[in-house]
């Protein structure tokens, strides 16, 4: 094993352990307050259910609008839960301790983003087929929606983490974060909804999904780094 991993730095194991610890801690904290997790989920469900009341129950219209509605609802739900990412740790001082961890800060950020996705992104992905049924989406489109959300929601957490880190300890942070993050969500929205749209029209959605995947990879490389820089600035 040690021969196989010869290229890895000595403390790679320690880094993995730190990562696991940060993820575990954040998920545990979230599980102690399950109501917060449920709030995000129900927000998603309620927003998606409001649209038919607004535009009318015409099935054809709803089927055409469903991809966009579901994605916008997912975007808003993910954004609303960003406040929990750093704000509470900042308030009780544990964020400063996390910054002092000997491992790179970007690693801690990755751990927190993973936890955020597990708590607020994944439940949303899992419940989305039920809502898609309400909008009478065809089966193929539901599968695509599931895949697109699976690729897209981690990206939302990654991009959102930058905004959350920039607004740590800033007054009016909650409203400000939407102003910072929503314009950056645009590509995710376009390709995510585009994939579902294409598949609902009987076309191949793999192009959209590939781009979403590429964006996710790009985000995974760049976003933790930018988030770490932003956190250091916010805490100095």
């Amino acid at each position, binding site marked *: 094993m040690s021969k196989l991993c010869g290229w890895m730095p000595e403390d790679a194991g320690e880094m993995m352990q730190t990562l696991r610890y940060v993820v575990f801690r954040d998920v545990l904290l979230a599980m102690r307050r399950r109501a917060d997790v449920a709030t995000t989920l129900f927000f998603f469900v309620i927003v998606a259910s409001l649209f038919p009341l607004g535009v009318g129950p015409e099935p054809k219209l709803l089927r055409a609008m469903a991809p966009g509605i579901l994605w916008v609802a997912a975007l808003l739900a993910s954004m609303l839960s960003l406040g929990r990412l750093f704000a509470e740790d900042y308030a009780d001082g544990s964020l400063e301790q996390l910054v002092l961890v000997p491992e790179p800060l970007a690693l801690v950020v990755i751990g927190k983003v993973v936890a955020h996705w597990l708590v607020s992104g994944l439940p949303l992905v899992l419940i989305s087929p039920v809502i898609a049924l309400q909008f009478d989406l065809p089966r193929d489109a539901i599968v695509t929606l599931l895949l697109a959300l699976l690729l897209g929601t981690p990206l939302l957490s990654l991009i959102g983490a*930058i905004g959350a880190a*920039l*607004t740590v300890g*800033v*007054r*009016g*942070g909650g409203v*400000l974060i939407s*102003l*910072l993050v*929503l*314009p*950056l969500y*645009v*590509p995710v929205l*376009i*390709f995510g909804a*585009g994939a579902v*749209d*294409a598949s609902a029209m009987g076309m191949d959605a793999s192009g959209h999904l590939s*781009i979403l995947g590429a*964006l996710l990879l790009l985000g995974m490389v*760049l976003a933790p780094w*930018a988030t770490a*820089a*932003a956190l250091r*600035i*916010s805490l*100095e």
Partner: protein
Amino acid sequence: MKLNWFKYASPVTFYPLAGKLIPWFALAAAILTVAGLYISFFVAPTDFQQGESYRIIFIHVPAAWMSMFIYIVMAGWAAAGLIFNTRLSSMMASALAPTGALFTFIALWTGALWGKPTWGAWWVWDARLTSELILLFLYMGFLALHAAIDDPRRADRASAVLALVGVVNVPIIYFSVKWWNTLHQGASVSMTMAPKMAATMLLGMLIMALACWMYSIAAALMRLRCIILEREQQAEWVANLAKEPT
């Protein structure tokens, strides 16, 4: 003699230099605007397809250019401020932001005025219009973040990170919007299909673009001087400046 590149990197030395430069840029902006407007209204011929309404491009296109260019320059200054920890660079970035936002707004507004007689609609979800709108949102985010943080140094650095993230995202946003647009609606409206421009039209547009450049520099420098005075109000040289008879 060794040239000191960093002489004007300090607010103390840059403040008077900016004061000396502003009149020249303002004068150049005024002359170029008058010349450009004269060409655009009296020399350039009437367009055979669009009639007189096309003349709005003489402000619309330069404004759109400036809006994108200023964002890049602003991000460049912000990055310089972040990397070299120079106060003046960050001040320059925050001095440029309102001018950039202004040009973005002008580009959108004049675009709407042009769109109504030409396309029959104030707004269409064209790729360029949409990405320009998102650019305006990015400017607003930069300004809002800077305004929300009380400590000016922290505000500079935080908004610098945001500007850099924005600069990485602008091309992604542009191409995704472009692709989205071509998927959703046919090319009913296309600005790239415009007929070849007459030379005088192009000349008028270029002169107006130069005028916008000069205006942007003058306006940014004026705002920069205000920011310097505000930030350095505890400094001795500002106190001496205030004592001087005007």
